[in-house]
């Protein structure tokens, strides 16, 4: 393998509260309009929100290898094909709006070879798991995890993927990238796209030009549900430190991948299940605990218990620091040190 990433001096981290996400994809479109509107990026969704349990984006997202074993050995990964990612579909506008048509035809999407789509970026939205009346799901937001052990960095033979020393953001140097896609194979979260028109790999850049101007990333700032928190992981007064280190309610996604991701999730609470006789089954969560442990690691049981206890405390009118953080009555509190309003920035005119 190529070189491992050197540890960064500080690490920027995020916490996404799965209990507040309403799946509106405002984050997805905030990212899309900011970064991936140009030719060759039509199919790229650097930020994606999928329903889980589900197959994700690309299809069967966590089954394509990558990451490390417990001994730190790289796990070979594969390429989900373009079809598993979901193409940017075409629509027969001419057929629909053509003037010489006797009968209207419906606006069916088509893949570029004319075939009907078999998968797309949010294909199984809201399907979830379980059976009525005990069905369940949650929305899972995914961006680049800016891992502390980034497999993509080690996989790149050209050293064009790197982890920034000042904030631990993982970036691809587009001047050096030759489009070999070893990084895409190595990423266990499959968050790296291929731009076939520019012959390079591309992914979420954590809105680093915004961060450098003191502005929070677009997906975080535009989230209407106040789901997303950002700060440096070592800021003991910040939300991230308190949620991850102090309260231990924010957990990494699929910690078994061995890459030490820096996006953490508040695991989903769920209502009680119904017994066959229609009564509440108060023995556990409706979302199976085994599934939650697979997704968020063994700490999820304690995290959910803590959330439950603090919620009850707040409901009883007592003060709960944890609930105050998660509610974030002051919106800017979510943004850590990145509270600059982009509308107030002096903008450089584009050439």
């Amino acid at each position, binding site marked *: 393998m*190529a070189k491992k990433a050197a540890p960064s001096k500080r690490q920027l981290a995020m916490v996404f509260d799965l209990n507040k996400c309403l799946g509106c994809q405002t984050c997805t479109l905030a990212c899309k309009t900011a970064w991936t509107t140009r*030719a060759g990026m039509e199919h790229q969704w650097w930020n994606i929100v999928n329903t889980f349990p589900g197959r994700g984006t690309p299809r069967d997202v966590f089954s394509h290898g990558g990451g490390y074993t417990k001994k730190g050995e790289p796990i070979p990964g594969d390429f989900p094909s*373009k079809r598993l990612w979901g193409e940017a579909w075409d*629509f027969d506008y001419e057929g629909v709006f053509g003037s010489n048509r006797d009968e209207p035809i419906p606006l069916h999407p088509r893949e570029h070879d004319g075939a009907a789509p078999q998968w797309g970026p949010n294909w199984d939205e809201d399907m979830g798991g379980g059976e009525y009346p005990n069905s369940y799901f949650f929305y899972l937001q995914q961006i680049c995890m800016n891992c502390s052990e980034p497999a993509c960095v080690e996989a790149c*033979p050209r050293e064009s993927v790197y982890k920034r020393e000042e904030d631990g953001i993982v970036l691809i140097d587009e001047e050096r990238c*030759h489009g*070999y*896609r070893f990084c895409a194979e190595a990423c266990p979260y499959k968050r790296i796209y291929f731009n076939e028109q520019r012959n*390079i790999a591309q992914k979420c850049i954590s809105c680093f030009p915004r961060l450098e101007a003191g502005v929070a990333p677009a997906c975080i700032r535009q989230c209407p549900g106040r789901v997303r928190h950002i700060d440096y992981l070592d800021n003991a007064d910040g939300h991230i430190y308190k949620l991850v280190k102090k309260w231990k309610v924010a957990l990494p996604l699929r910690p078994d991948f061995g890459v030490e991701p820096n996006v953490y999730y508040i695991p989903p609470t769920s209502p009680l299940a119904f017994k066959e006789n229609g009564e509440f089954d108060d023995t556990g969560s409706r979302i199976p605990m085994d599934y939650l442990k697979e997704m968020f690691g063994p700490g999820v049981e304690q995290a959910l218990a803590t959330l439950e206890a603090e919620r009850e405390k707040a409901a009883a009118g007592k003060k709960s620091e944890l609930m105050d953080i998660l509610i974030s009555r002051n919106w800017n509190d979510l943004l850590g040190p990145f509270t600059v309003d982009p509308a107030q920035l002096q903008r450089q005119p584009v050439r």
Partner: protein
Amino acid sequence: MLILRRIPRWATTGGALVAVLLCAGLLQLANANPAASQTLTLTAWQASEDPGLDPNHELWSRTQFVQAPLTAQAGSYAAGGGSIPVVWARALHYNNTLYVRLEWEDSTQDGSALKVEQFADAAAVEFPAKSATSVPSVCMGQADMGVNIWQWRADSLGNPNELYANSVVDTYPSTDDLFYTARAAGNPYANPKQGPVQNLVAVAFGTLSPAATQDVQGQGAYSNGRWSVVFSRPFTGASEDLAAFTAGTSTDIAFAVWNGSEGDRNGRKSVSSFLTLNVSGAAIPEPEGSDWLVLALAAGALLVIGGGGIGLGLYGLREGKRSA
């Protein structure tokens, strides 16, 4: 081995000599030069006219080839390749410009990398930099002895817009190069205006970078399960980190071939070791036996000598048995 020991020495020696003569004669007729890799020499002959970039130019069929064995790249991550066992190389020069033609068998034409799961076929030639005082490491050179690599990629033939031929795009927010970030950063692989050949320099693994001057031309053609690719560049390199050629002198040349359908890219490739590239001042030699009469006479002589040798060998074997 008992029987062998009883064969008279003159018979075995004679048989071996005849076998060698037979092989040499056949190879001469076949116009091939499969010398051992350590001593393999590719001669760039002086062409009488400009061979141009067309791999099917008539001059090439009259030019003797060298058959260079290729192996999987095992020296460094990402190791792999090896699906292309051999490349046939020819070289010419005309008007102080070097032309190198590579040909190899590949049953799959991977001429595009338009989807995340696709990789393109490619080929490269490598030379020591002009500044190198000795032969650099064939594996991307070393700090004080760099290499100059010319890489041709089959996807340069493809048009990315083909994939989106049916797509409907109302408008892109901006088509300014500034927003095509890789291109704006000067990444030649991201620039559709760049020709099919990249002129690259390297001084170690991971240092491969585009040269300041992109003056290498090339053209590839695929037919009947074979790629043939011509590279061309004027003798004089624009800088010290590039290869330089002079008629009447020798330098070194190595080859690499990537098979896209095998997932080859970067270090996953089939590679040769360095061969000697002799830039000859002489014209393309007429292949021996190109005259049908000479050819027939040579074949006849070989048959007589070969047949006699085999006969002698058998006679010796029988006599050896009888005396036992």
